[in-house]
């Protein structure tokens, strides 16, 4: 199954990518699994695992690590927000 993944702010810069479309194995059904999968590529991608207080969204709504991820979803990872 395919999902869209987006990275923002300091994470986007650290990874050197604003986002990508990735193919998920059947076993990756949660946000936490998606994060581990990408971080597991090694190199700069490990920063996704190392970032403290990482926040995430599924389909443009804030989501916790155990949130379900399904085919066609839009997942985003980013640092804590600092607007206002």
């Amino acid at each position: 199954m395919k999902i869209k993944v987006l990275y923002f702010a300091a994470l986007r810069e650290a990874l050197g990518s604003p986002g990508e479309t990735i193919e998920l194995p059947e076993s990756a059904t949660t946000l936490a699994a998606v994060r581990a999968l990408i971080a597991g590529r090694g190199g700069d991608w490990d920063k996704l695992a190392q970032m403290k207080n990482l926040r995430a969204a599924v389909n443009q709504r804030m989501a916790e690590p155990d949130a379900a991820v399904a085919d066609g979803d839009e997942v985003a990872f980013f640092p804590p927000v600092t607007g206002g």
Partner: protein
Amino acid sequence: MSVSVQQADFDIGAEIDALLAGRTDVGAVATFTGLVRDVNDGSGVHAMTLEHYPGMTEAALEDIVAQAKARWDILAVRVIHRVGTLQPADRIVLVVVAGSHRGEAFAACEFIMDYLKTQAPFWKREDTPEGSRWVDARESDDSAAERWKQGG
């Protein structure tokens, strides 16, 4: 049109007037405006860039407004948040809440700001003499948002 995310500046007086146009039932208007300060965490700031998550930002702001309307008896709300590069003294964010009475207007306005600070996907990068840096989230913002959960 209660929520806008835009590069352009806004006119506070004009936004209030538009929100109140034709109404005679509003007794109280509370507003909050956030501005770029020339100093933050001990460093001079000569510019700030606001990044956001298009689509989710608007949805998050609409959701925050809906929560405020569900919680308080208020009549109208307007939220504007700017993105892009801003200078010191530039306006960043505007929240206007119109209600019948002041207690509810104040509470809803502060609630919207507190939730916006922790729930709306905006990120600030500051340009300082020491270089460019991403602004760290403040624990005080989390605790400000948290207090609304305790039946306040």
